């Protein structure tokens, strides 16, 4: 009778799991994992507001043939960098939380050591059958996993829904500061170079070779700035995908087991991954 009870419970649990809805969060995990890697590309930018200010300050000195040591006032740019980094860190921490909470290993609860101990131990008048213990161990592991999964699913759903609007604001402004303000500052740097080299290339006191070399230098600088701008553009596309992906997630938290929706989320993860490769190739 006891054996029948253990076997019955052993087979009943997967059904229980189905009824309770052990949500497969792999698509959410894939999306948030790529989101973390994509956002972290911020760390690889070789420049920021402060750096562009310092470079522009040096440009001005060169243009004025000024070799007197003087400080560049870049305090406003330091603030702009701090604010941008703060927004970046806040969004990154959120996606890291989402990644960890949706990970498989979090609700994998192991009771095997406890079972082994109980089957090996001597507990006076209480006799424990090894086979029965193993069955109960599997049952308790599954029950714990279902319970933990339930807690996690409910919490995750709430977090995703609550964070949707503020997260969108943060991502929009992170993009605004980078592809809006920082990239435009780089555009100004390009225009400064153009002016500087325009006059030099029309200076008839210079030889044709010198003017040729100057023109070559100009295109070299231009190409360097454009590479930086392309990095920002690629990063901006990643942010757009994060906004879209999280929006889709927040609107479908009841459909996390829906194969179509999961496919959709996996596609976002794949698209972010493609952009990461594009960023690396720049």
């Amino acid at each position, binding site marked *: 009778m006891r054996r029948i009870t253990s076997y019955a419970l052993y087979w009943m649990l997967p059904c229980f799991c189905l009824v309770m809805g052990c949500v497969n969060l792999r698509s959410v995990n894939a999306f948030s994992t790529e989101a973390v890697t994509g956002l972290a590309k911020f760390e690889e930018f070789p420049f920021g*507001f402060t750096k562009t200010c310092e470079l*522009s300050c040096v440009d001005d000195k060169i243009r004025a043939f000024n070799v007197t040591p003087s400080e560049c006032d870049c305090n*406003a*740019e330091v603030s*702009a960098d701090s*604010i*941008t980094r*703060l*927004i970046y860190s*806040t*969004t990154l*921490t*959120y996606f890291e*939380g*989402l990644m*960890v*909470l949706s990970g498989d290993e*979090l*609700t994998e*609860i*192991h*009771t095997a*050591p*406890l079972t082994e*101990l*109980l089957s090996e*131990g*001597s*507990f*006076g008048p209480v006799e424990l059958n090894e086979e029965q213990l193993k069955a109960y161990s599997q049952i308790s592991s599954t029950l*714990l996993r279902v319970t*933990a999964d339930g*807690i*996690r699913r409910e*919490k995750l759903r709430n*977090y995703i829904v*609550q*964070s949707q*609007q*503020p*997260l969108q*604001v*943060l991502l929009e*402004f992170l993009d*605004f*500061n980078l592809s*809006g*303000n*920082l990239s*435009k*500052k780089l*555009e*100004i740097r390009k*225009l*400064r170079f*153009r*002016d500087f080299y*325009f*006059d030099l290339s*029309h200076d008839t006191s210079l030889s044709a070779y010198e003017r040729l070399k100057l023109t070559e230098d100009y295109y070299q600088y231009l190409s360097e700035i454009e590479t930086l701008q392309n990095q920002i553009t690629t990063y901006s596309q990643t942010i757009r995908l994060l906004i879209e992906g999280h929006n889709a997630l927040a609107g479908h938290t009841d459909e996390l087991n829906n194969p179509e929706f999961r496919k959709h989320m996996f596609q976002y993860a794949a698209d972010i991954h493609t952009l990461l490769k594009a960023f690396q190739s720049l």
Partner: protein
Amino acid sequence: MGKLKAGQVHEIADHFLDIGRAIGDYRYSHIKDLQDPLNNVLKDLYWSVLNTADSLYTTSATLVIDDVEKSMVTISNISSEMQKTYKSLIGIQEAIDCATGILTLGVAILNKDPEAIKLAMGELIDKADNP
């Protein structure tokens, strides 16, 4: 008059950038006709307008804080909650591990095995120190 917002300052900066670009284009295409004084005036104006646009983009980037402050607090709170949930879920496994440790110690005491008691105590202390 209300304080300008980041987006509005950005728009103004865009206008300065367009004006600067137009001044430059004019100077480059008329360089042969421009006398030195006028050329210098246009050149200085060009740099001055671009410098203003440059500063305005920085100002716009710093003004963003007014727009994101509330959202930043909300997301930070949610992230803290996530951390707590993570710890409580991890805690289930830790509780089982701890129960296993206590039981091991119990069995060792019942068996009157000093070596096993010592080992089980050590493991329990390790778990307490490194939860």
